Every structure is written in structure tokens, then in C-alpha cells.
């Protein structure tokens, strides 16, 4: 069985490399994008093999699905603008290739040197999981331990949208009607997609899933609707649309403000609890010990009173 698994892993790794190479090298751009989507799906499989089902869901929904749809939509519009998109085939350049292969070999050695005993935070996450409010460790890291990263990441999404709007991207023009079949499919599929997104969001607390995967499923529903030629009513594209896209990041920011406002007390508590759990505390040089005239003092003052 082990041999089978090793063989599967080896084939999958080689398949990933081969698909990536073909996606970049094949002369037809459309084919390249389709190969890239297939590459994304194989990536999802690789995440499953690496015991990262949350990442697999995100990759399948966002990496392969949404990115693929965006790439295809962009290619369709590129063909419509008169821009000649067929370029002469790129010549093979051995100079950079050799340099990169050498750099890759060095990188590979460095990576292999880490494999015997990689350091990580499994133990700390497991110890604090109970206080995070969810039982799926990945969700705990995303929404709680490293929630600040997630806030910034949401803002990156919003920023990309604003930036695209600021470039005055052509509104998608009406194409030939997609036909009754697609329309029918959509009517059947949209409720299912919304339901699936809600399920993913709910399941994320204790099982693989979560907000981003759910959001990506909703996004895919939106892309499908666009493909089928459905458009927002004009009176919904102004402030209502802007409100809809800013409500998520806005809410997250409000939570962050609340945290910042309640911080002195919170920091005091956390300093107390951390003392029990943090292995860093064994190091006398850790910043915890040479810090915090700011946030520790109010707690002290309160206790004195």
C-alpha cells in the first residue's frame, strides 16, 4: 500500500510540473488557460494528500475555479479588442534556464535540509484551540490567532475591486444570449450554490471549510450568472453595490476597533494567561519580558487601587 501511495505522490508531483510547463509553453493561449485550470485541480488533489483539506477547498474554488473564470473572461475580451494576441512563439533561452535550474537546485537542497525536523506551531495551536471558540484548527488560526492577517487580506480583496473600478474596466457587454439550457441550469444551480456556501461557512467551525471557501462558491455563482447574461438592475449598481462589497470588510474593521478600544484590559489578561502556555517564556530574552510599560501598567494601577 505504501508503495502505491508513494507512486501516486510521485506521479501527482510530476503531473503538476508537466501541466505547469505545458500551460506556460503551449502556443495556444486558450489551451494554456485550460491547462492551468487542470493544474489548479491537481493542486487541490495535492493539498488533500498533504492533509490540508481546507487549502484543497480554497484551491479548487478560488485557485482553479475563480482564477480560471477570470482568465477566460479576460481572454474573451482581449480577443474582442483588436489586439493581436497571437505572438510569435517564444524562443527557448538556455542562459536564464541554466541559471534558474542552478538556483532551483540550491533551493531544493535548502528545502530538503528542513525536512527531517521541521519546526511548527501544532502544539501551541492545539493547546489554545479551546479558547478560540471553534474546533477546526485552521479556522481558529485564520479568524482568531491570526485574524489580523485575515482583516488585511479582506482589504486586499476590496482594494483590488476598487482598483479595477478605478481603471474603468469596460462593463461586460451583452453577448449572444446564452440559451435556455444555461438559464435553466442556473435556475436549478443557484439555490444549491447558496446552500452549499452557507453549509461551508457553518461547517468551517469544526470541519474543513470556512468563510473564504464559502465566499468563493458564492463568487462562482456570480460568475455563472454573468456568463448566462444576467445583469444587475441599473438602480442597484451605485451605492447598493458599493454597500454590499464594503459591508464585510467594514464589519471586520469595526470588530478591530472594538478590540483596540478594549485593549489595555485584554492585553493584561492575555499577559497573565500567556505565562502558563507560552514556551517562549522559558527564554528570558523574549520580548514579553522586556516590554509593555504601555499595556501592562494600567492593569497594575487598577489592581493597586
Amino acid at each position, binding site marked *: 500500500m505504501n508503495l502505491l501511495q508513494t507512486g501516486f505522490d510521485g506521479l501527482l508531483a510530476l503531473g503538476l510540473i508537466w501541466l505547469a510547463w505545458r500551460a506556460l509553453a503551449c502556443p495556444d493561449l486558450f489551451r494554456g488557460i485550460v491547462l492551468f485550470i487542470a493544474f489548479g485541480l491537481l493542486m487541490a488533489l495535492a493539498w488533500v494528500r498533504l492533509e490540508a483539506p481546507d487549502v484543497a477547498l480554497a484551491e479548487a474554488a478560488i485557485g482553479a475555479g475563480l482564477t480560471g473564470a477570470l482568465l477566460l473572461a479576460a481572454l474573451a475580451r482581449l480577443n474582442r479588442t483588436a489586439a493581436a494576441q497571437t505572438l510569435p512563439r517564444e524562443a527557448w533561452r538556455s542562459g536564464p534556464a541554466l541559471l534558474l535550474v542552478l538556483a532551483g537546485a*540550491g*533551493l531544493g*537542497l*535548502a*528545502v530538503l535540509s*528542513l525536512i527531517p525536523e*521541521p*519546526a*511548527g*506551531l501544532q502544539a*501551541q*495551536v492545539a493547546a489554545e484551540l479551546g479558547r478560540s471558540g471553534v474546533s477546526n484548527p485552521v479556522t481558529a488560526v485564520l479568524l*482568531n*490567532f*491570526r*485574524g*489580523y*492577517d485575515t482583516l*488585511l*487580506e479582506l*482589504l*486586499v480583496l*476590496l*482594494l483590488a475591486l*476598487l*482598483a479595477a*473600478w*478605478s*481603471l474603468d474596466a469596460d462593463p461586460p457587454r451583452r453577448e449572444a444570449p446564452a440559451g435556455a439550457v444555461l438559464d435553466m441550469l442556473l435556475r436549478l444551480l443557484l439555490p444549491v450554490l447558496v446552500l452549499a456556501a452557507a453549509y461551508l461557512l457553518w461547517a468551517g467551525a469544526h470541519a474543513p471549510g470556512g468563510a473564504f471557501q464559502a465566499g468563493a462558491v458564492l463568487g462562482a455563482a456570480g460568475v455563472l450568472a454573468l456568463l448566462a447574461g444576467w445583469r444587475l438592475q441599473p438602480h442597484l449598481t451605485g*451605492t447598493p453595490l*458599493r*454597500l454590499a462589497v*464594503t459591508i464585510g*470588510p*467594514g464589519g471586520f*474593521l469595526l470588530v*478591530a*476597533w472594538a*478590540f*483596540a*478600544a478594549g*485593549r*489595555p484590559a*485584554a492585553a493584561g489578561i*492575555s*499577559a497573565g494567561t*500567556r505565562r502558563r502556555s*507560552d514556551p*517562549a517564556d522559558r*527564554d528570558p530574552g*523574549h*520580548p*514579553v519580558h*522586556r*516590554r509593555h*510599560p*504601555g*499595556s501592562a*501598567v494600567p492593569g497594575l*494601577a487598577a489592581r493597586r487601587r
Partner: protein
Amino acid sequence: MPEGVSLSALAALPWDAVLILLPLTGAVAAGLWPRSARPIGLLVSAGGIPILVGLGTAVAGTDGLHHAVGGWGAPLGIELRADALSLVFLATTALVGLGVALYADSYFEPTLARWFWPLWLFLLGALNALFLSADLFNLYVTLELMGLAAVALTALGGGRAALTGAMRYLLATLLGSLVYLLGVALLYHATGTLDFGLLGQRLEAGPASRTALGLMGAGLALKTALFPFHFWLPPAHASAPAPVSALLSALVVKASFYILVRLWLELFAPLAATAATGQVLGLLGMAAILWGSWQALRQPRVKLLVAYSTVAQIGYLFLAFPLLSAAGLPDAAAWRAVLWLVLAHALAKAAMFLAAGNLLRFGGHDRITDLDCVAQRLPLTVAAFALAGVSIAGLPPTGGFIGKWLLLEAALLQGRWDLVTVMLLGGLLAAGYVFKVVGHFFTPAATRHEAQRVPARMEWTALGLAVLALLLGLAPGILLPWFDSAVVMPMAGARQ
């Protein structure tokens, strides 16, 4: 601790969190209500200064404030850190940001201003978040937020040159952050933490840390546009709208440099196995000074000239890497000089780009040889350009002079005549390109041009920033202790 308690009321306020959240909230609000974008943008840009003063008083006298976001703390959570080094960059951002915001308010017509304000506030929030972060992966996210905002701002003017410049910039900045992230991956698996403080204790010399240094150094050098990775900078900075060029040259390239300084002073320099990397960075810095200055001298347009001057001035920032103290540690005097140069260059370069924007608005072009007696017609702009240029060239009595003098002194004490020679040559070339432009200010051009009115505020803000660059050189004694502690503390933390 009686005085500790009296200060605590002020120090307890979450200045650092406000400094990050205010611009980001402002950005979302400005995106949501385009009609209020202008007051929101101006208010938030100006609000940075009092908040920064608050943060400064809280930090003063400590060796840095740490704040565990969400109360988790390293290594599980993310930590914010405010110390003298971050304050140098935060103050630069607040000052230049306010000046450019005032300028941009007159520069952009309403259709563009609607987009400028949210994008600028995103950029401001990302910069503040970056300077306050003590977490390697959090730094990656702030880098991406900053990069995307900067790309969108570059493309804001439209037009083929700006769009192509922005596209090239986007690819370069994405490549830079991904290569940086690969280094982060190696460091994380080598040490099991992303926090600077813990990394400083756990990092050991080995293939993983060497490769990580190479990757992170290369990625950040690409984002800082260190020669020969500068290829993306001149087209992007020269074709962006003038206030955006000022922000890019003064602040955005400094942000990736800040991460590099942190990594170097706190993590990699004490490993002692990295001296060769320092020498390489120093060589590239020297090449950047000579190449950038030479290219600047040859440019036919003011904005391109100023952009190539940025390539050259970035080179000076890398001259401190090869300078080591007797114990093999970074030379504090050289790093103090480099931080001084960061502030001086940001003020002067922003002033130069804003002045170039005025020239462009005035004559409809920025070809140097066709500048038509602008000295009589735009005296404030000309004064701003000349003052800022004197600081860039490192002539007394400006901020640039102090920085370059300190750096020269450090190089001389170590007997690094190669660095000294390049710095002097670079100064000569810089004086050459500045006075080439200033000379054309006074001459009539062969063809007269239709002149457009330049709003007074655009002239005054350019002059204001240039005067700040000058004032920096008049009383260096007041600020130098701050810069000293900005260098000494990270190094002391690293040695613990």
C-alpha cells in the same frame, strides 16, 4: 513607578492600532461614499500627525512598545511593535503623506479624485501597518496591500505609458513578494515562529537561513529597486501622476527597505556568516549610485530625471551593509546616517516630483530643454526644485548633506575608500543633473508654449516639503539622539 503611572494614561491609548485602523477605515468609507471621499481623505491624512505624536510620547523612554493583536501574542498570534526605528519611517510617512495629500487635492480633477482618496488611504494604512508589524507573514500581507494600492495609483492617470508602467510594476512587485514569502516559509520551518523577537533567539546559521536571507534579500531588493533590479522603477515613477510619483519614490520603495533593515539588524547580521551578502549589497549600492546618476544626467524629461535620481539615491541606502564594527556587527554610525538619508530623501524627492508636476501642469510637457523662463513665472516651484535638488546632491546646509556627511565619516573611519570615492562621484553627478534642470529654468525656450495656471497650493506644498528638507540640515542635533536609538535598540535586542 510614579512617573510611569502618570504617563500611563497617555501611553495606554492604543495609538499603534489607531494609526493602522484609521486610514483603512477611511479607505473603506471613501470607497463607499465617493462624495465624502475628499474630506475623509484630508482629515485622515492630517490626523496621522497627532496620532504619531501620541505614539511617540508613549514610546519615548521605553525600548519599544509591543502589542499582541487579539491578546494572543507570539508565537501563535501577531505582534505589533513600535520603537524608534519604526517611528523614523512612520514620521516620514506622515509628513510626506500630508504634504502630498494637500497637493493632490488641487491636482486631481473630481473624476480621478474620487478614486485617488480611497486608494491613497489604503496605501497609507498599508504603510503604517508595515512599519508597525513584527511578524514575517503579516509583513507579506501588508506588502501586497501596499503593492496593489501603489499599482492602482500608478495607473490612475491612464494613458499608454502609465498603464504599461503600472503593469510592469505589478509584475515586479508580485514577484518580489512571492520570493520574499518563500524565504519566510524556510525561516518558519527552520524556527517554528514568524515573530521577529523569537526568530532573533532561535535562528542559527545553516543552509536554510542562508537561502532564506538570499531569497528575502533578493525579493526586497527587487521591491526597493536596487540596481540591477531597478528596471521597473523609472517607467512607473515617471509616468504616474505627480503626487503618486512623489508617494512611490518617497515612501513605497522605503517600505521594503525598512523590512530589509529589520531583517539585517535583528536577524541576519548577528549570524556572522552573512558578511559576504553585506559586501554584495554594498557593491550593488555603489553600482546603483553611478548608473542611476549617469542615467539621470542623460534624461530629456524632468520626471524621468527625478526617477533615475531615485535609483541613485536608493544606492546610498545600501552602503551601510558592508560597514561592520570591530566586533563584526553592523556599524551603528553608518546605519544612523542611512536612516537620516531615508527621511531627507523622502522629503526632498517628494518636493522634486511635486515641482515637476507643477512644471508639467504649467507648460503641458516636462522636456528640460523646452522649459521656458519658468523662473519668472513659477518662482515658488523653481525654489522648491532647487532647494530639494541641493539636498539630493548632498550640499550644505540641507538634510541630505548631514546624512551623506555622516555616511562619509563612517566609511572614512573604516578606511573604505571605494565607498568614499563613489559617494563623492555620485554627489558631483547629482549636482550636475540638478543644475542642468535649474539652468534651463532661467533660459527662454525656442518655442513658446501655452501656459496653464498652477494652483497656489500646489506650489506651496512643494516648497513646504523642500523647506522641511532644508530645516532638517539646520539643527541635526535635536533629532540625532532619536536616530541613534533607532539603530542601537534593534541591534541590542538582537544580541540578547
